[in-house]
């Protein structure tokens, strides 16, 4: 009779324990060697790779610029990044690796609130500051005082869109068409619905799609028959482009609008500029923004990445790294508590996505702009302050 399996198992446990024991967890900050180590986790492959790759490129550009200018606190910046394959479960492991093995001083990431929420408790417990470039779920920074973000939150954006719909679009009856697979979309819809209803508006229809779907005609047809004044689509540009195009194909002429997930140069290509007439979205950043910091970023990005124009994720990725760098400089050290305090004190930092101030909840408080598309070009409509 063969007891091999159980024996193998015991050996394995012993072996694994040895392995684990070999490298004991070094305590906190090793006398910062000869470099400042910054970690990043992003979805570089898998379903949400489009966003992860974008934000990663922005962050990478920032780090390269920092090193070209002589590093931080006189030391070069060592950049360690890992791919979480858009898969739940990976981010937690990556956070542990970056913190305990690579000894990062801060963690940058993630685009998706779900994955940020996965890593945040680990960063918080290890007292490593974490900055999310674009996770908008309020719960992310609620995890603890070491977690920050450089983008606005769903409640803020939802409220401003509700106001915009009522005030500027003069829409009384709205249909919401949200991405059920994206926490961002569900969250934004939820935080739009409440203030909009409170302001006396009516939601005549709520349809759902799953991110990655290509055919929205069935739901759009259903929406069309209920005759809304405007349609809110709190989704990502990857789907919005097709949604807008198909809506116009079906003869829907009312305005469509959404949030910063729309922001990307590809939007015009996918939807076609004709279809995008009469659509609006709120965002932090626009490549057309004449602000010098933004323009400098756009030029640098284009130069670095073969003429490609950055989208909002890239700009936010860039800012997350730059805000961190600014805090490191102000703190004069990378010691975790000092760095955390310096980050919390960030005020009016001139980033590519606007003047960034981190409020008491460690969320970015900054104005949003509304953009529309006219004649194939993005056009600024108005600014809404927090």
């Amino acid at each position, binding site marked *: 009779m063969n007891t091999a399996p159980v024996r193998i198992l015991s050996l394995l446990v012993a072996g694994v324990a040895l392995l684990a024991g070999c490298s004991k967890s070094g305590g906190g900050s090793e006398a910062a060697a000869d470099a400042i180590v910054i970690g990043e986790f992003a979805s570089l492959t898998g379903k949400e790779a489009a966003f992860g790759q*974008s934000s990663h490129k922005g962050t990478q550009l920032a780090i390269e610029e920092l090193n070209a200018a002589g590093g931080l606190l006189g030391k070069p910046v060592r950049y360690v990044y890992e791919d979480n394959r858009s898969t739940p479960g990976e981010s937690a492991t990556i956070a542990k690796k970056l913190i305990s093995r690579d000894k990062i001083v801060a963690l940058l990431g993630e685009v998706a609130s779900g994955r940020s929420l996965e890593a945040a408790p680990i960063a918080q417990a290890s007292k490593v500051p974490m900055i999310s470039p674009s996770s908008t779920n309020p719960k992310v920074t609620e995890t603890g005082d070491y977690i920050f973000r450089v983008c606005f939150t769903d409640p803020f954006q939802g409220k401003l869109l509700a106001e915009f719909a009522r005030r500027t679009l003069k829409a009384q009856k709205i249909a919401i068409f949200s991405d059920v697979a994206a926490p961002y979309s569900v969250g934004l819809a939820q935080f739009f619905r409440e203030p909009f209803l409170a302001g006396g508006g009516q939601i005549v229809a709520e349809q759902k799609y799953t991110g990655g779907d290509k055919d929205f*005609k069935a739901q759009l047809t259903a929406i069309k028959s209920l005759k809304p004044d405007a349609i809110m689509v709190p989704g990502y540009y990857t789907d919005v482009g097709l949604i807008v195009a198909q809506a116009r*194909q079906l003869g829907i002429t009312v305005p469509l609008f959404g949030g910063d997930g729309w922001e990307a140069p590809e939007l015009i290509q996918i939807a076609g500029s004709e279809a995008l007439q009469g659509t609006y979205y709120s965002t932090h950043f626009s490549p057309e923004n004449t602000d010098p910091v933004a323009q400098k970023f756009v030029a640098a990005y284009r130069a670095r990445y073969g003429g490609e124009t950055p989208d909002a994720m890239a700009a936010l990725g860039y800012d997350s790294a730059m805000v961190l760098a600014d805090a490191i400089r102000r703190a004069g050290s990378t010691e975790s508590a000092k760095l955390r305090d310096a980050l919390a004190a960030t005020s009016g930092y001139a980033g590519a996505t606007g003047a960034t101030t981190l409020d008491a909840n460690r969320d970015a408080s900054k104005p949003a702009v509304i953009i529309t598309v006219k004649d194939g070009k993005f056009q600024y409509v108005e600014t809404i302050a927090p």
Partner: protein
Amino acid sequence: MTELLQQLINGLALGAIYALIALGYTMVYGVLRFINFAHSDVFMVGAFSGYFLSRYVPHESVAGAVFVLLGSMIICAVLGVVIEKLAYRPLRGRSTLTALITAIGVSLLLQNLGQRLFGANPRSFPALFPQRQFTFEGGLVISSGQIMVFAVTLLLLFALRHIVLKTRIGTAMRALSFNPVAASLVGVNNDRVISFTFALGSALAAAGGILYATNYPSIDPLMGTLPGLKAFVAAVLGGIGNIAGAAVGGLVLGLVETTVVALGGSTYRDAVAFAVLILILLLRPNGLLGKRQAEKV
């Protein structure tokens, strides 16, 4: 009423695309008893081939469109043959599950290579055929893209039927699907016929990719997974190995899916295809148009 008609058109147009992809699955399975998991990614390569080829032709011209379509069909035919030679041929004679896992491996490889080479950002597919909307009374809208899908699918269906039933190589394919050993005994070059089958199936996938991209002009390296799976369900639904079955299965699935979405179950859209698959395999495993086959011992 208009809404019903509109949903009907939507469903049929969607179904026609599934039918086109399903043709490739059904052919390869019919001849080789093998589910080519990588078919959905050949579909994706077809769309990307079209994207890159379209840079060399003027937009919105029929001649250019035909060039792009044929060009990507040829590219994918070659890809299909290469995959068969490198990954599947060494496994001939081994268990079908080994082949299935290899196919999954090839599929993953193509997807990840695509993400590496093309980047994960979706690209917008240019308008190859002139785009027009035809509006009818009551607000019913049919787009030229949808009409194209019907037309091309029908064309390719008949072409395929002709090849399989009326040409020598088609006869060889049918012989192979009955009994490979006997076929080789009567002089059929199995290797060559199998390569041809893959080439044909892949070309069809490419056509499906181009039409799909024309109607939903956003392409990305992972675009093939879901349409591919659904097309496979369509093939099984119609009776796998049966060409007309693939067409019927595709249309039925498209209609069922659109109905579910129209009734408010859009978030269950993907599960629909699988539910259909399971039902069909339980109730009528040989598909709508298939024949019962007894298992000999």
